[in-house]
């Protein structure tokens, strides 16, 4: 399973994701923002960071780079795409997942472990969890408050992937912090599964996100 890890100027979770993908048994490789053809890969992960300094809006500039065309092709070929943190913001900016991740309600950067509930198991990334399973993964963002003016549609179409189970630290609508597209193949999550991929990090609850890619 060849997995592309997309790198933009300012990406900073790329190596962590590489490590987690290797732990899960995948064969990862880095791809830069200016590569249009990524058809040789079986899946894509857009890692976290601060692409283009978060200028304009988090993810807005990355959303118009050439590699995005390649990512859209990837989805057309029914291959899975996961965006983590800044990667999630980018997927929302392109409109590949519904809604937007915007400034936290307390106007602060929040970096902490959170309790989360897996809301759907129909995405490749959550296929190895149980529905409503409680897991622990960290968040680290200033623009993670999920907003969407069509929340009912999101629920009806089973597009909510993760929700905060305890405190809702960033003020997300209905505590949602992970969503997917209608097919469940494109998934955007604000918490960092790669930072919870080994017990030595405090939890390995996130590893199944990457194992799910290998199993797909």
């Amino acid at each position, binding site marked *: 399973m060849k997995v592309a890890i997309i790198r933009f100027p300012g990406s900073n979770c790329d190596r962590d994701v590489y490590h987690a993908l290797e732990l899960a048994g995948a064969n990862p490789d880095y791809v830069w923002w200016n590569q249009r053809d990524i058809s040789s890969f079986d899946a894509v992960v857009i890692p976290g960071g601060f692409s283009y300094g978060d200028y*304009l*809006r988090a993810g807005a500039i990355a959303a*118009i780079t050439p590699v995005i065309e390649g990512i859209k092709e990837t989805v057309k070929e029914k291959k899975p795409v996961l965006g983590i943190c800044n990667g999630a913001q980018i997927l929302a900016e392109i409109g590949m997942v519904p809604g937007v991740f915007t400034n936290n309600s307390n*106007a602060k950067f929040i970096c902490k472990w959170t309790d989360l509930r897996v809301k759907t198991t129909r995405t490749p990334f959550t296929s190895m969890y149980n529905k409503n399973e409680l897991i622990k993964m960290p968040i680290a963002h200033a623009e993670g408050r999920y907003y969407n003016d069509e929340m009912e549609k999101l629920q009806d179409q089973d597009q909510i992937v993760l929700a905060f189970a305890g405190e809702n630290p960033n003020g997300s609508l209905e505590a949602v912090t992970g969503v997917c597209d209608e097919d469940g193949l494109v998934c955007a999550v604000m918490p960092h599964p790669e930072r919870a991929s080994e017990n030595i990090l405090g939890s390995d609850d996130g590893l199944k996100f990457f194992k799910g890619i290998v199993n797909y």
Partner: protein
Amino acid sequence: MKFNAEVKISLKKGMLNPEAATIERALALLKYDVENTDTIKIIKFSLEGENTDIIRREVDEMCQRLLCNPVIHNYEIGISPED
């Protein structure tokens, strides 16, 4: 002909604006009692074009493709000929 363009980007009505809320609380610390605080982003640039209508259409396209996120933003475009 050269034109100056100004795009004013604001949050849609009812959207939470944490920056504005923080500013309002800070003003309260200084004993200024204000309400309805808002922040607006202004992006300015100049560009060549035939007339105001064509420029306005082009800038509107820029807003939809990059400058704004239609889920949360409203925008106003101002165009004026460069002196």
